[in-house]
């Protein structure tokens, strides 16, 4: 029995099993000091959670948020990695700077974003009103649905949700950037040189030579980012508190736990969240295997 295995058992497997147990028991926050693992079992928590519309809407929000964030972070990470691929003066500095959003404390960066996007004295709204002709400040983090007037077309946009996705793009593109850059550096330049001789355009060279070689890293990246974004709590909680159409599943669990003080229901919902995630990942892996990729 290795010590590591023991630690994992104690801090991961054991809490997980206990969490499953709690989800089948009636447990309120106030009774927590006397929580009894052998309390009678009940399906009430699941009944409560599954029947409430809030569960499904929060899972849907999580799914949209995850999809948007993963696409944005991966695309920006890819563009950034390709842009700094060839040497130029200041490259070391630029590469290090690109990693800043990822290493800085989440509380500090969400705070700055909140201040910058503030409708009263935020610099973004000041700038927009002064230079971009916005007629009124945009409440980026508190408006669930705005109307975007594009050449007379009234397009409804989920303002706050888009803003948090944009924030995710800012904060997590460095992760994709780091992995793609490492992979790009490890690639042999011969296939690209051969393609150049054969008259491939830069786009063709990227599409048919580079992209297939990056596919395995991209697969892992998308997998990891999906798991982490789907479970993400900090970013949304700190930016919007889950208001304005951004209540993702993990924020709802937190509210069940601390506002409604229902530990059992919070456990039940967190298990549903984990199951949905496992299901999504199962589909993802199956699709990739069908297409002949090694996962």
């Amino acid at each position, binding site marked *: 029995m290795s010590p590591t295995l023991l630690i994992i058992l104690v801090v991961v497997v054991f809490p*997980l099993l206990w969490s499953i147990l709690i989800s089948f028991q009636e447990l309120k926050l106030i009774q927590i000091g006397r929580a009894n693992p052998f309390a009678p079992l009940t399906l009430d928590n699941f009944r409560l959670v599954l029947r409430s519309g809030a569960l499904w809407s929060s899972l849907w929000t999580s799914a949209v948020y995850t999809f948007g964030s993963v696409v944005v972070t991966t695309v920006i990470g890819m563009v950034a990695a390709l842009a700094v691929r060839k040497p130029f003066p200041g490259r070391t500095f*630029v590469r*290090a700077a690109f990693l800043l959003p990822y*290493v800085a*404390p989440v*509380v500090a960066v969400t705070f700055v974003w909140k201040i910058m996007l503030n409708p009263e004295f935020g610099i973004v709204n000041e700038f927009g009103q002064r230079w971009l002709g916005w007629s009124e400040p945009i409440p980026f983090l508190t408006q669930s649905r705005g109307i975007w007037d594009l050449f007379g077309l009234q397009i409804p946009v989920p303002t706050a949700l888009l803003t948090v996705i944009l924030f995710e793009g800012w904060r997590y593109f460095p992760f994709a950037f780091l992995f793609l850059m490492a992979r790009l550096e*490890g690639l042999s330049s011969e296939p690209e040189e051969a393609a150049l001789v054969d008259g491939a355009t830069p786009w063709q060279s990227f599409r048919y030579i580079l992209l297939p070689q990056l596919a395995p890293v991209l697969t892992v990246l998308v997998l990891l980012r999906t798991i982490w974004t789907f479970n993400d709590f900090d970013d949304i909680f700190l930016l919007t508190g889950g208001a304005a159409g951004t209540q993702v599943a993990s924020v709802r669990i937190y509210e069940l736990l601390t506002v409604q003080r229902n530990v059992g229901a919070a*456990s039940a919902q967190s298990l549903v969240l984990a199951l949905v995630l496992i299901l999504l*990942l199962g589909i993802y892996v199956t699709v990739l295997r069908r297409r002949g990729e090694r996962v």
Partner: protein
Amino acid sequence: MSRSYSYDTWNRDRVQRMLFGIARPVVIGVLLLWVILPFYYMVLLSFMPIESLLRDPGRLWITPDEFTLSTYEKVLRSVQDGGQGFGSFLANSGVVSISSVLLALAIAIPGAYAVARLEFFGRRKVNALFVATYLFPAIVLAIPLFVLFTRLGLRGSLVGLVLVYIAQTVPVAVYMLRNYFETVPVSIEESARLDGLGTFGTLWRITLPLSLPSIMATGLFVFMIAWNEFLFALLFLVDRRESWTVSLGLAQLSGSIEVPTTILMAGSVVITLPVIILFFATERLLTGGLTAGAEKG
């Protein structure tokens, strides 16, 4: 026909090359601006009195006569002295992060070594368990730990928080270290054995010194997680201001309207600086350690 075709691709090739040639510096410039701007704004506001911000919010510079350091003084001073107590938040976070690093390494090093070197039952299963750690949201594990720590009286103590951070970081630490241990040639260790060192002697005298860069990278990774972590600090410590970590402190104070924004910006700078300094000092080590698996493709 074939001539016009080749002319066409040649032309397209040239257009694309020109486009990409222009796009590259533009992309780098725009991304750099986008990444740096929030940090620049954070530092800018931290040196400004709140009145200046409210009077003219659209500025990206500061005049010498409004430059002030009083924001830093106010944010760091203890509550009794009329400050915000970030000094004690820094101390709490320092204690929590450093203990997490030392303990996580003490557990992960032998663990990673065992996974890398010794054949034992269920090695693949251990890998699967590591992955499983990340499948479940932190909040799933948070609930039973919350119950358990309440019963043990560990909630509200920094000890409980350290335990959670160890749990969260040990799996990745084992993964990072294992990748490195596997690159240390077995033949070196075998010659050490022949010279009479035992398993632990070999690990201590031979493998560890060789793996020092990787161990430092792993330690820094744990430090950054522990320093930046928010959810568990919020769940366990929210009622006890004297135990708040930097992240929790900033989040709680920014939720109230009483503390001026510029003072909290000074707080943000103060809690961001240690991580960024550590990161730049060791950037090469850290990025290499994290992506060691990716390079193999």
